[in-house]
């Protein structure tokens, strides 16, 4: 017996399957033409927590700001120091351009160059803060580095490594999402970030209000190992970063704290050695040796980030360490 009988011609099937592709193709053409002809606004893909923070910091680096003290570094710089409180305590405007540990010093140098270009006069000191975990990383993660460089270069964030990625780029998905959707619709942030901050726009507004600082609302158990060291690639990246520091501006460097028991009893000595070596590579004007190498475990929401209640105290310690270097 026959399995099935088709009461249609092959051309009917072709018509049914292919005609809906026409509007899709038309949409892709419109997106690409709109992007090429600059009829569409430039890409600004603030579509998730990470990219919202990254784009906010990149934008902040490009704007003309009043900052005299510029904080740069990984997420421990972003989440452990309150730039607003630091401004109050120093009596000098501070701006936090901290991002993530997924980005290395070369990427931080990019932000620094952008800032120096937009603000050639006011800056007095650059404070580079990183967690020991970030210091052992050997480089930026491709995705995040591409997100940053694409944004700074006015390019759409296309990931064409896979066939699906190529199709997505071809259809103009990233153009639509990065240029239209992210501007038209606030996107809900997932998980604890959503519960704490709300939507992408709320996170951006908060970052602006807090002069680039945020807090980590997502507690996680301590993970990783405490065998901290400096990555061999850090030396070259440090020199590159140093080269981006404008003349006459002080470079101050510090290592953010680790959980006391997690890091172990020998860590304070290791911390001092790491800071000394890294500071030499950076040719820093000073190392912030007054910052605590470790804090009690209950001060942390995760291995790298402090609790909201501990941030003012840590910011105060940072301010105390910075004051001698900022006096006229």
């Amino acid at each position, binding site marked *: 017996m026959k*399995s099935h009988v088709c*009461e249609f011609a092959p051309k009917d099937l072709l018509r049914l399957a292919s005609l809906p592709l026409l*509007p899709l193709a038309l949409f892709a053409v419109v997106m690409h033409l709109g992007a090429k002809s600059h009829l569409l606004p430039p890409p600004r893909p603030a579509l998730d927590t990470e990219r919202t923070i990254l784009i906010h910091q990149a934008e902040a680096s490009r704007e003309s700001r009043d900052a005299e003290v510029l904080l740069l570094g990984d997420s421990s710089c972003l989440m452990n120091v309150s730039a607003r409180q630091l401004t109050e305590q120093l009596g000098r405007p501070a701006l936090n351009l901290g991002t993530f540990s997924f980005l290395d010093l070369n990427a931080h140098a990019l932000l620094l160059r952008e800032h120096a270009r937009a603000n050639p006069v006011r800056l007095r000191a650059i404070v580079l803060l990183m967690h020991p975990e970030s210091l052992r990383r050997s480089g930026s993660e491709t995705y995040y580095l591409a997100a940053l460089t694409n944004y700074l270069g006015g390019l759409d964030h296309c990931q064409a490594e896979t066939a699906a990625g190529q199709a997505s780029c071809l259809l103009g998905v990233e153009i*639509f999402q990065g240029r239209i959707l992210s501007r038209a619709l606030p996107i809900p942030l997932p998980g604890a970030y959503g519960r704490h901050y709300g939507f992408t726009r709320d996170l951006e507004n908060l970052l602006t209000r807090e002069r680039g600082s945020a807090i980590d609302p997502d507690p996680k158990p301590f993970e990783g190992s405490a065998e901290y060291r400096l990555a061999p690639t850090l030396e070259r990246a440090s020199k590159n970063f140093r080269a981006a520091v404008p003349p006459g501006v002080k470079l101050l460097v510090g290592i953010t704290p680790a959980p006391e028991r997690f890091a172990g009893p020998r860590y304070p000595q290791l911390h001092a050695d790491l800071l000394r070596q890294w500071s030499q590579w950076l040719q820093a004007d000073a190392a912030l040796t007054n910052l605590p190498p470790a804090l009690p475990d209950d001060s942390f929401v995760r291995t790298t980030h402090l609790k909201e209640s501990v941030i003012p105290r840590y910011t105060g310690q940072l301010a105390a360490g910075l004051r001698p270097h900022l006096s006229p």
Partner: protein
Amino acid sequence: MLFNSGVFLQFFAAFVLLYWLTRNSLTLRNCLILAASYLFYGWWTPDKVESSSANALLGALWHCRFLALLVATSLLDFSIALGLDKLPTPRSRQWLLSASIAANLGVLGFFKYHDFFAQSCSELFSSFGIPLQARTLGLILPVGISFYTFQSMSYTIDVYRRELPATRRLVNFLAFVSFFPQLVAGPIERAKHLLPQFAGTRVITLSMLEEGIWLILWGMFKKVVLADNFAPLAEMAFDHSSFTATTVILGTLAFGLQIYCDFSGYSDIARGTARVLGFDIMWNFNLPYSAASLREFWQRWHISLSTWLRDYLYIPLGGNRLGTTRTYLNLIVTMLLGGLWHGAAWNFVLWGLWHGAGLALTRVPIFNSQFSILNSQSRRWLSWLATMTFVFYGWLLFRAKSFTQIADMTRALADFSAPPWIGSFALNLVVFAAPLALMELWQFKSRNLLAALSLPSWARITLQGSLLTAIALFWQKKGAAFIYFQF
């Protein structure tokens, strides 16, 4: 395997090609459907295993384990049905049917409810000061078990009732139980309707293809574009530690829309896929949020489950034939078990109880005449509003994680403050609800679920192309699982 994944698109494309190649042999076609369905089912790996398995071999063993359960259930019911057909005495037939029901519900109960009841017993004894160590087994719920168990069970019951002869074609029966378009989340098909379709030549007409393609697109749009964008809104509202009236109301709306778009999207894709292959599976949803009474809601929501519960539980319990009080009791028991079918948690029991009590209450004459002073139009609007309020509060019970959360969220309905992000929340809700509302209004007004197919050719192509574009824009690389997979 998820419908909203690249793997499924590849799988379906390959399947259609092979399906066409087997067009001259019914047996080959059914074997192909069976093999593809088992592959489709075996592709699923529970999260726990994925994260813990050290190698692919262990993963493969897990696949076989749950597939074996599906095959065993099918073989058992196939054999029992043959026995039911042959046995002459009612008593022996009754015994055999009882064995089938006990085996099916035993397997379902073991996987789905063992830990829940063990935990609940332990808590109950603890509340009386009697320490009882509950032995939970940490069982993984095989995906789709509630659906295929009910589908398979209905077959033996129908054979027992002599409404259907037992099939002697094993492959047809195995293919009926595991038919991949509706295997993991329904609709729960009746053997009377689907099984004969495996025994004959299927005729695929142009209109069936048109309907199939439309349903696949519209179902995919509801899942990928709507449900997956309502999901983070519902999560934001329900997973928050503090609630206000605005977050509870908008969060519950978001969840009600998410679960509808997710589940009806799946059902549409299932029906559409089957249509393209020449099969007909039942409509599972018929504009449920247009219902103006609770009874009407249940005639429109998850139709395959509500009719299953009606035919195999409510009516055998006595239905409405044993007096008013017994009717109310039967309704409550049926809905309570229907709630429990959704999952092993007390909030599902409460949700079932809520709907059972609601259905019983709306049978009280005073509720039927409540708006009698109003004209029919106003009466319908008010009834609709009351029904939707009832249904959406039910979603709050369904989605909440604990009784404490239910109490907190209910109390919060008196707090009219709003978090700063409520504007963004409302904007998202409106943007994603608008296409659904427009389409359903059109379907409701035209009394046609396939109203889009009546459009002129150019307009239909534009509409389908727009849906396809939206799906491409919101497609997630790692597709989000359908909510009903967990049931």
